[in-house]
């Protein structure tokens, strides 16, 4: 890999721009895609690799190319800088997830409690306005406080977020769904919320609950049955 290619690839990744590094096999000639200057079939294959988030070798007009998809990391918006979040955030970082913690309560949302991640002190609805969750974003509410959780879930349901989870018992969740219904969300929309959040592994401690949430997150992300 030439220094120029590495620099261009690094630049795209830092800017969180989806890009494919195409390597001609076995010769090793490389380029970044999509690029309007090259064969359209290569660009089509590159876009497919990015949309599937899947790298692989393709054969185009008798030439083999390895298409390495560099999709930006998926985002996880955690509402509630609570104890469980303190376990969840470092585990999520290990999984390569881009984590943002939202909590307007200053004593919770400190960089001391959450080093190395983005911490926002905005109210959840304002934060969601800024963050604009897309189809590569997930939203998890952890506060147990309707004043904070509900506006975040309301906004998440209006977005394309691929995973929406809410911490709380079945009873709490039922009441939460009632409140969201009053805001105008139908049953189909409400069914998008994973609640109680996480796989049922009988988790007890904060790290165990974080593990169950991330296990569910991965199963959704990887389209497990």
């Amino acid at each position, binding site marked *: 890999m030439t220094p120029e290619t*590495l620099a261009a690839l690094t630049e795209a990744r830092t800017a969180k721009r989806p890009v494919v590094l195409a390597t001609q096999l076995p010769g090793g000639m490389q380029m970044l895609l999509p690029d309007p200057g090259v064969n359209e079939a290569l660009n089509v294959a590159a876009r497919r690799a990015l949309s599937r988030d899947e790298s692989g070798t393709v054969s185009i007009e008798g030439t083999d190319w390895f298409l390495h998809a560099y999709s930006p990391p998926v985002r996880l918006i955690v509402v509630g800088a609570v104890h469980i979040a303190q376990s969840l955030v470092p585990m999520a970082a290990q999984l390569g997830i881009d984590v943002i913690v939202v909590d307007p309560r200053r004593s919770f949302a400190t960089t001391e409690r959450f080093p190395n991640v983005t911490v926002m002190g905005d109210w959840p609805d304002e934060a969601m306005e800024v963050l604009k969750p897309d189809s590569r974003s997930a939203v998890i509410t952890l506060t147990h406080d309707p004043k904070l959780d509900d506006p975040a879930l309301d906004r998440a349901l209006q977005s394309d977020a691929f995973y929406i989870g809410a911490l709380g018992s079945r009873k709490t969740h039922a009441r939460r769904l009632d409140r969201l219904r009053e805001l105008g969300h139908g049953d189909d929309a409400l069914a998008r919320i994973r609640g109680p959040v996480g796989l049922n592994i009988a988790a007890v401690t904060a790290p165990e609950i974080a593990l169950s949430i991330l296990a569910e997150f991965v199963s959704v992300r990887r389209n497990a049955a």
Partner: protein
Amino acid sequence: MSETSDILATAAAWREAGEEVAIATVTQTWGSSPRPAGSQLAVTRSGRMAGSVSGGCIEGAVADAAMTTLDSGVPALLDFGITDERAWEVGLACGGKLKVFVERLA
């Protein structure tokens, strides 16, 4: 959700620090290969390694090939599999097959 980025960043940091660095990337897999296409292993002349291209079965052979590529500057496309009887006589215990591209980080 990709750890590959970190391997590339690690390789770039090593290069920046003056190391000679080769990058090996899984380009294709068949059967039960443990790591998907795109998985990477960075190797330095001095023997540092980061990442992986298998469950540990072929990393040694890949590191050897990386030294050859560092010497020559010529990239290589390696085949690994249980029936392979050519240059890289290293089997995969899982019975999978894969191709690995080895290049120098210039």
